[in-house]
């Protein structure tokens, strides 16, 4: 199967690869996986007290589409408020990267990683339990 040029571009030149210190209170970490293919994705978001995503890092072990999806997401969420970031749907990623149907689960994974990272940040910040439930959807 041929990858789209945008997938290849992110794959060959991934943005924001790496990690933040896990114990940094401003950092939310989301680790999600796709059990059908065994891919694992870690997304970390550095979030200000007002809830703005200041920086993002990812590490993904998986296929080119999974790597491209997470790379694209790190660019997409930077500068956004968490309420905006939580509303990002995988369809946005599918459209941007031209993902074929068999790779849609990679975009779902990236969407879930954002939610998991924000939920983790909220938990660390001790935000009200109701908010957390919404975030975990």
């Amino acid at each position, binding site marked *: 199967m041929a990858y789209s040029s945008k997938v290849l571009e992110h794959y060959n030149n991934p943005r924001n690869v790496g990690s933040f210190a896990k114990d940094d209170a401003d950092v939310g970490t989301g*680790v*999600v*996986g796709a*059990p059908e293919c*065994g891919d694992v994705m870690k997304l970390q978001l550095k979030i200000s007290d007002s809830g703005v995503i200041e920086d993002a890092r990812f590490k993904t*072990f*998986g296929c080119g589409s999974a790597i491209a999806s997470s790379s694209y997401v790190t660019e997409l969420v930077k500068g956004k408020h968490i309420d905006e970031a939580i509303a990002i749907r995988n369809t946005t990623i599918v459209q941007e990267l031209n993902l074929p149907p068999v790779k849609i689960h990679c975009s779902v*994974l990236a969407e879930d990683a954002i939610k*998991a990272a924000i939920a983790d940040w909220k938990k660390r910040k001790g935000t009200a339990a109701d908010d957390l439930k919404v975030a975990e959807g």
Partner: protein
Amino acid sequence: MVQCPSCARRSEPCLVCPQCGGPLPAETDGFTALGLPPKLVIDLDELERAYHTISRRIHPDHFVASPPDVRAASLKGTALLTRSYRILRDSISRGIYWLELKGDKLSESNNRVPAELAELVFEVQEQLAELRASRDQSGDQSKGLAANMLHVRQDLDIAMNRALDELNGNFRRWDSGAASEASLRGELKAVLARIAYLRTLIRDVDRELETVEAA
């Protein structure tokens, strides 16, 4: 009920007509196709015997000169039989198939990776990256990393065997009805996901070790 294209008599859906022994155009689940009860613990010898017995009965080679509907039943039945056999003989694919029979899917609400497992995945992947990077430089560092990776590979085998044991334990509990379906299903999905992550990791380690060996 399904009607036999050879003898026109009706029987419960299965692949071999119990009246005349001809192929039946039945669409059954994999267990029924092989004439087995819907149980997760399977004796593999028994499974293989069932496969060969039914295959001999309905194989298309025997129906070359038969009417089209009999030939069609033989072809479809053989395809279903072979597919079912392949799925059921492997405990992992059997477990995934079982979830589908229960109207569930392995990936459905099942994407959180347990922290401990995630840590293992990232740790091993980073060691692999290190090994890959050291490949171009000859010498002791690369050798040391490769030797360490062999230990990692053994540990992964142990973890995989433990997961497979757990899978079998889950199978036994399904068969004995030892717990509610919901809890058994949750348990099955969790252990199958763990196996998937371990399998991917083992694949990546093996690839790297092969490259090291070839060099």
